[in-house]
C-alpha cells in the first residue's frame, strides 16, 4: 500500500501530470491561456504516429509473439463487453436515461490513447517492458463499443439507429488509420527505420506529451467549469468505479492470455480508460439526443484525470504484484 502511494506520489510530480494540472487550473481560473486547434491536432497526430511507429518497430525487433492475436481478440471482447457492465453500473449508480447511459457506456468500452501513451511513458520510466503490439490492441478497441451502445439503445426501443456509412466512418477514423498505419510502417522498416527518425519520434516525445496534456487540462477544465451541476455524485462515483472495474477485468484477461507485466498494465489501462474523441463524434451522429455534456465531462473531466494520476500507478502496482514482478 505504502509503495503504491509512493509510486503515485512520484507519478504526481512528473512534468506530464503537472502540465495537465496547470492546464486544468488555468481553465478553472478562466485564464485565456489556450492552444490553437490546429496545434493541438498537430500534436495528436505526432503522438499517434510516434506511438504506432515505435510499437511496430518493437514488434519487428522482438518478433511477433504468439499472443498477438489473443491480445487483439481480448481487446475486441473487452470493447464489446465493457459497455454492458458500464450500462448496468450507470443504471444502479445514476438516474441517467437509457439513452444517456448507453452513450456514456460506449465511451468506457472504447479507449483513450493519451492515457495509453502516458502509461507507456510511466512503464519506460520504470524500465518495465511491454509488447509493442499493444498499440494494435488499442486500435482494435476504439470502435466495437459503439456497436454495443447502439444495440443497448435499440433494445430499449429509443431513437438510436445505425446511420448509413457510420460503421465505415468509425473504422476508418483518422486516429485508427494513423495508429495502425504507422504501426505497420514501423514493423516494415524495423529498427533501421526507427533509427532514422528517432530524433523526431523518440527524443522529444515526452516534451510534446507535456504540451499536449497542458491542452487536455485546458479543455477538461473548461468542460468542468461549464458543466458544473451536470453530474450528480452517482455519476462521479461511476467515473472512478468504472475504470477500477475495467482494469480488474483487463488484469484477468491479460494474465489469462499470458501477457508480460507491462502488457498487462497496458491492457488494464485500455480497459480502464474512456474515449473522448472518436466516440463523442460518433455519438453526435448516431445518438444526437444524448447529452454530450454528460459523457464528455465524465470521460475527460473525471476518468481521464483519475487514470492519469492515481489509476496508472495503481494498475502498475496491481500488475507487478500479480505477476510477481
Amino acid at each position, binding site marked *: 500500500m505504502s509503495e503504491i502511494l509512493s509510486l503515485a506520489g512520484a507519478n504526481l510530480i512528473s512534468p506530464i501530470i503537472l502540465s495537465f494540472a496547470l492546464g486544468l487550473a488555468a481553465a478553472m481560473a478562466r485564464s485565456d491561456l489556450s492552444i490553437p486547434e490546429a496545434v493541438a491536432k498537430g500534436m495528436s497526430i505526432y503522438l499517434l504516429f510516434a506511438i504506432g511507429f515505435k510499437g511496430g518497430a518493437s514488434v519487428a525487433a522482438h518478433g511477433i509473439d504468439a499472443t498477438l492475436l489473443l491480445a487483439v481478440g481480448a481487446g475486441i471482447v473487452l470493447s464489446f463487453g465493457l459497455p454492458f457492465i458500464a450500462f448496468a453500473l450507470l443504471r444502479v449508480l445514476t438516474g441517467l436515461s437509457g439513452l444517456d447511459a448507453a452513450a456514456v457506456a460506449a465511451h468506457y468500452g472504447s479507449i483513450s490513447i493519451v492515457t495509453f501513451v502516458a502509461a507507456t511513458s510511466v512503464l519506460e520510466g520504470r524500465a518495465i517492458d511491454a509488447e509493442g503490439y499493444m498499440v494494435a490492441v488499442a486500435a482494435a478497441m476504439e470502435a466495437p463499443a459503439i456497436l454495443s451502445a447502439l444495440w443497448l439503445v435499440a433494445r430499449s426501443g429509443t431513437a438510436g439507429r445505425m*446511420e448509413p456509412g457510420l460503421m465505415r*466512418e468509425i473504422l476508418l477514423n483518422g486516429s485508427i488509420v494513423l495508429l495502425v498505419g504507422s504501426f505497420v510502417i514501423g514493423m516494415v522498416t524495423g529498427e533501421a527505420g526507427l533509427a532514422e527518425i528517432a530524433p523526431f519520434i523518440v527524443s522529444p516525445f515526452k516534451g510534446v506529451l507535456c504540451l499536449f496534456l497542458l491542452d487536455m487540462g485546458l479543455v477538461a477544465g473548461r468542460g468542468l467549469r461549464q458543466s458544473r451541476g451536470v453530474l450528480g455524485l452517482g455519476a462521479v462515483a461511476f467515473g472512478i468505479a468504472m475504470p477500477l472495474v475495467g482494469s480488474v477485468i483487463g488484469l484477468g484477461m491479460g494474465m489469462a492470455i499470458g501477457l508480460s507485466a507491462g502488457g498487462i498494465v497496458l491492457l488494464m489501462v485500455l480497459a480502464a480508460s474512456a474515449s473522448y474523441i472518436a466516440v463523442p463524434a460518433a455519438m453526435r451522429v448516431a445518438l444526437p439526443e444524448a447529452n454530450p455534456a454528460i459523457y464528455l465531462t465524465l470521460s475527460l473531466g473525471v476518468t481521464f484525470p483519475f487514470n492519469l494520476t492515481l489509476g496508472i500507478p495503481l494498475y502498475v502496482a496491481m500488475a507487478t504484484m500479480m505477476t510477481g514482478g
Partner: protein
Amino acid sequence: MDMHQAKRIEIVIEKPMEGRLAKALSSAGVTGYSVVPVRGGSGRSGPWTREGEIGRSGMVMFICLIRPDRLDALLEAAFAVVERHIGVVSVTDAMVLRAERF
C-alpha cells in the same frame, strides 16, 4: 450590373454531420455551397469554443446561394439532415451576379 434574384441559405451544423449535409445537398441538386469555420458560439446547450479541441467537435457553417425556385428542395434536403440534430437554418433574400452559375 445585371443582378438576379436568389436565396442565401445559411446552415450552422455540427461538424460530425458535415459530410452528411454535403451529400444531402448534392443529392438535392444543389450546385454550389461554401463552408466557413465556426470558432465557437452559444445556444441552449451553453457556450463552446474550438480552442484546443482535436476531434470532430464544434460546428461549421454552410453558405449556399440558389435560384429561388430551388429553395424548397434544398430546405427539405437540409431539414432531413438537421432534424434530429442541433443546428440552425436561415434564409435571406439576395441578388447575385452571373445567374447562370446557380
